[in-house]
């Protein structure tokens, strides 16, 4: 198996952030050239006069599905590193309905609103302001009304994929979706022809639109890819790797009160008396049950007496990021809890040693205030079960 292209390797968090710029530019460019910056065209979808949005979105879903299957089978994508939205079914149903209402009212969804605004359309600017006001209103409202908070959190919060939810093998489901797509493309053409007479032609519709025949041919091609993928012997997905984390790095993360961090102490009995602040003492065989409740994308730091496990047991969830504390509990004691005599170090290293000693004083209880932010409270038990962040889907 070749080295995966994804996840991409970046030198720093800022480069990773910056990678969004060219991707966003290309995405916006393609949407704009496809006419998706025009609210009239998007609204025409709801009057069934112009099915472009439907066709493009369905094609995009098919492309992503097939692309992901293909790239994963070729070993180019490591799916365990992909972010998949956790499912909050009731919340997402209500939210999806509201998004639809806003979509019809403005003729734009969040993504196309940005594209449309960049083309200089003022209605898109108003739509975007509405989005901002809506988000701000929700953020205020969720604190004021407990029922809204309950709705916001309604659902499992687990990553739920269609094949698992329906109990259907992915290959069968993929083919079924392709079949639906073929029928839907043919049906869309018919619907369009029927309803186009009911109103004025949509402005900005490019004349050479993709024909249904082309879409059917593309879908058949995709089915071929799927068949090829299925023909490959199923290889068990590689277990997620345990990345090492230095004790001082973990200490800094604790001081920053980093969200979505869970620390598991796997030492057994001795973990009951002393352990890394915020760590949960848990036996290895019980860990899988605990980890199943953690939202995907969280970071789990594991450690043992004098080392950290280097491999993730097969029954542990795959959508978590595992990091092993270097040197285990002994490493923590040696590097974080023991101060360094500053005189042993050269002038250049003294700054680093001073910082290390500040951290040491803080965690060993010699200094009451955390070294980075004097006003922050001491690290409470940080669990991965903190409120999971929801990410918007959008189009």
């Amino acid at each position, binding site marked *: 198996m070749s080295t995966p292209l994804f996840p991409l390797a970046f*030198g*720093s968090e*800022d480069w990773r*952030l*910056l990678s969004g*710029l060219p991707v966003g530019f290309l995405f916006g460019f393609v949407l704009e050239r496809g006419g998706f910056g025009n609210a009239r065209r998007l609204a025409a979808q709801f009057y069934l006069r112009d099915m472009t949005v439907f066709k493009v979105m369905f094609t995009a879903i098919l492309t992503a599905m097939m692309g992901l299957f293909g790239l994963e089978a070729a070993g180019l994508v490591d799916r365990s590193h992909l972010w998949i939205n956790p499912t909050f079914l009731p919340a997402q149903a209500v939210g999806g309905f509201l998004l639809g209402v806003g979509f019809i009212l403005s003729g734009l969804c969040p993504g196309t609103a940005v594209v449309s605004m960049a083309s*200089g359309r003022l209605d898109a600017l108003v739509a975007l302001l509405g989005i901002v006001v809506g988000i701000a209103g929700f953020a205020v409202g969720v604190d004021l009304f407990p029922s809204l908070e309950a709705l916001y959190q309604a659902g499992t919060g687990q990553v739920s994929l269609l094949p698992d939810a329906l109990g259907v093998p992915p290959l069968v489901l993929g083919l079924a979706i392709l079949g639906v797509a073929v029928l839907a493309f043919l049906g869309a053409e018919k619907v369009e022809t029927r309803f186009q007479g009911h109103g004025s032609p949509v402005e900005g519709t490019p004349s050479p639109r993709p024909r249904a025949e082309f879409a059917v041919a593309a879908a058949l091609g995709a089915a071929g890819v799927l068949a090829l993928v299925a023909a490959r012997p199923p290889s068990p997905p590689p277990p997620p790797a345990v990345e090492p984390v230095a004790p001082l790095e973990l200490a800094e993360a604790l001081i920053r009160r980093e969200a979505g961090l869970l620390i598991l102490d796997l030492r057994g009995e001795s973990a009951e008396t002393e352990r890394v602040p915020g760590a949960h003492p848990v036996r290895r065989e019980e860990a899988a049950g605990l980890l199943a409740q953690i939202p995907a994308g969280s970071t789990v730091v594991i450690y043992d007496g004098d080392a950290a496990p280097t491999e993730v047991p097969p029954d542990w969830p795959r959508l978590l990021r595992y990091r092993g504390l270097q040197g285990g509990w002994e490493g923590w004691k040696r590097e974080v809890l023991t101060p360094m005599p500053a005189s042993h170090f050269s002038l250049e290293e003294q700054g*680093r040693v001073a910082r290390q000693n500040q951290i040491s004083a803080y965690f060993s209880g010699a200094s009451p205030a955390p070294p980075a932010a004097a006003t922050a409270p001491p690290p409470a038990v940080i669990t991965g079960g903190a409120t999971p962040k929801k990410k918007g889907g959008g189009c």
Partner: protein
Amino acid sequence: MTELESGRNHLLIDPSLHVWGWQIALYLFLGGIVAGIMVFTGLRFLGRTPRPPSLAMALIPWFAPLLLSLGMLFLWLDLEHPFNAWRFYMVFQVSSPMSWGAWILLAVYPSSVALAWVSTREALGGPLGPRDGPWSSLWLWLTRRLAGVEGWLRAHLRGLALSNLLLGSALGIYTGILLGTMAARPLWNSPLLGPLFLVSGMSSAAAFMLLYPLSERERVFLGRTDLTLILVEMGLLFLWMVGLASAGAASQSALALVTGGPFTASFWSFVVAVGLVVPLVAEWVELRHGQVPGRSAAVLVLIGGFALRWILVFAGQASGWSSEMALM
């Protein structure tokens, strides 16, 4: 006994400088625009064309004293002891960029106001002046009062234009030199910062002028000039980065603030992409297809010009000489 006290043992200095805030970034941005407006206005009067300027172009020189006053208000707000500011004008220190700056700022006022007045009179004087309405009597009173001064200014118009050109350039360069001479902050410590700020200021000024209803000929001229200025600015930025990369460890770690460090995403997206590359392509496409330059690229240039100063002010303060500084 002489006690030695380290100036670094101070909350505002270590681990990184926290002395200059948004006021300075805004002042540097406005100062750059003022410098550019003065240079362009000076050039307009030095290389006179037979065609009269549009009304907007004739009135734009007034933005030099107006924006400078706004910028100086921000500068004044930043002072620890604002009511001691008059002391700047009790002395002139040849080796202090701040002293030079204080006197340049003072000299900018009479020069820019005088040229703005001549420019306005050329456009509005005579038959074009307001003949009725509430402004006519004030206009009449002003023109009569200032007739003698105006005559003298018109007689020395070339000198006045030249003084605007020189003072504008000095203002633009001084803002860069002010940061560039500070050896303690390696990100700023480059002689290229002066020309970089002048060119960026002129580019921002061209963009600022494009926001107003200028004539087609003026828009094309400013669009072409801005295109050149953006290219020169890109070259200067590149040289500035090469200079830092090839200097000592402190300069290299300062450069790392924008090549992987915490200012990377903002620098490359706002300054380079939004402020330079996109407007460069947009203005080039406009001119290539014979279009009159519009306002979109101009707005992007202004965003980029502001981002450059904002990021340089804050990233510069985060750079330093201690080895752990780059990690902060």
